[in-house]
């Protein structure tokens, strides 16, 4: 049985605007699943429905079911979902800007009573993200974009999640930083066995580390499959993989021509 499963969920903002309709996805235990789509497709909305963070934005899950570890979580409030093991790294990083990196990590440890355990976790985060250790005393608001993304991930890991959800961690980062962060995500998944649900527009980078993925458009899942299948699918290649690599216009043209011919 999957660790997380969304069954046919529908999400509306302000009770009228349907942002997500009939979405079903699964994340297996220890899985690394990508959720790919363009701007406004509904990726962030899906993550918020899982973490419960729709409410502050006046959104709600109107239909469908979300189960985590076999139990329905829709009635559970966000802090308790974190205690079940679900953590959501928000789009745009959202670090606590006036707190130092260390304080950011401390703030995320309210579920751990044992102080020694908290310090051990902090030490582990500074080992995983040595750049943060160097800046441990600066205010987080002054860190670089890449450092802030690392801090956002480290902060989420302080909750000792079973499912780590990341909303566009590559946003606005230089390619070498994207590689560094994706290597870390892979390591967290493989070494610590944390399941990952990775939302990305950068499909190339995401499908390099994901085991499987889904494609979302206009609030609906268009297709799902293993990373290999998605990578080799011409629609995916055309719409998503092209956008972030050097576009091979020859190949694109060829593909268009073929499509017209088929139709």
């Amino acid at each position, binding site marked *: 049985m999957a660790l997380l499963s969304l069954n046919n969920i529908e999400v509306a903002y302000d009770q009228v605007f349907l942002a997500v309709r009939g979405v079903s996805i699964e994340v297996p235990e220890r899985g690394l699943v990508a959720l790919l789509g363009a701007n406004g497709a509904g990726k962030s909305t899906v993550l918020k429905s899982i*973490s*419960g*963070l729709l409410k*502050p934005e*006046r959104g709600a899950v109107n239909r469908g079911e979300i189960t985590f570890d076999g139990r329905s979580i829709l009635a559970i409030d*966000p*802090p308790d979902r*974190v*205690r079940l093991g679900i*953590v*959501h*790294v*928000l789009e*745009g990083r*959202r*670090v*606590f*800007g*006036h*707190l130092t990196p260390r*304080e*950011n990590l*401390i*703030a*995320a*440890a*309210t*579920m751990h009573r044992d*102080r020694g355990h*908290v310090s051990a976790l902090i030490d582990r985060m500074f080992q995983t993200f040595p750049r943060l250790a160097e800046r441990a005393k600066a*205010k987080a*608001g*002054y860190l670089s*974009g890449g450092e802030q993304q690392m801090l956002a991930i480290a*902060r*989420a890991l*302080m*909750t000792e999640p079973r499912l780590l959800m990341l909303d566009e961690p590559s946003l606005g980062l230089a390619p070498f930083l994207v590689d560094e962060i994706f290597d870390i995500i892979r390591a967290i998944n493989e070494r610590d066995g944390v399941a990952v649900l990775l939302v990305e527009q950068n499909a190339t980078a995401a499908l390099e580390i994901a085991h499987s993925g889904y494609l979302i458009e206009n609030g609906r899942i268009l297709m799902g499959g293993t990373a290999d299948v998605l990578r080799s699918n011409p629609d995916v290649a055309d719409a998503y993989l092209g956008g972030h690599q050097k576009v091979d216009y020859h190949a694109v043209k060829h593909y268009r021509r073929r499509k017209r011919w088929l139709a």
Partner: protein
Amino acid sequence: MDWMLIAELAVNGVFVGLMYALVSLGMVLIYKTSGIANLAQGAIAMTGGYVAWVLLAGLGAPVWLAIPGALVGMFAFGMLIERVALRRMIGQPVIMTIMLTLGIEIMLRGLLPGVFGASVKRLDIGIPQAPLFVADLLINRATLIGGGISLVLIVASLIFFNSRFGVVMRAVADDQTASWSVGIRVERAIAVAWGLGAVAATAAGILWGSTQGVDWSLSLLLIKALAIAILGGLDSIGGVLIAGVIVGVAESLATGVVDPLVGGGTRDIVAAVIILATLLFKPHGLFGREHIERV
């Protein structure tokens, strides 16, 4: 110019300022956590004074029981205000929430004197009123003790905000959604801030009540608290400490030095002038946290 008189005014002003600062400390605690300027702080101080008076004079409790009793009761009262009034305002424009706190201020100002009668209640907590001489300076013993207690409470709050729970409260102030996302119980943190804000107000209400009696005028401490909070920067505890001393000394000097020249009445203008001048020339106050602009 009589330098002894000025020194005396300044020293007394420092202690009075610390006692004012205790009221604004509560505003800062709440602002630091929830981003709301609590304009009910003066009336909460007054309510705390009334509660202590009821326990002491009404029920005949000893001082060592009445004061902690009032503080605990008012902690619950602060949490209650958050729970029944403020929590409903989540998602509403900030200005509406601030108006709500002003409404609470006005309601309490009318309600308590209405219930207990408008006469000034004597609140005797055992601080001797006889003045003290330190190196020829005449010092008001009640304000000396009150200022000392205020200083201790303000420093304790500084330490608290660097504790684990204090860090969580600062995180909530920074970004509520991000706080939820990592499992912080945001509503609880804000409720505790309101409880602590009410405790600081109550401590001030009792100290001021013991020097001037308990009646509705205790709620006028709001004006001084607001001046100090604005001058100090609304979210800086250190700022409250320094701004409190500045306001206290300025008021004291205005009363002692300027009043005789212009015929009186400058004392109550000082706070208003400080509020206006700060907002015009240094809107974030002396120690308000900078807005971090990089993304």
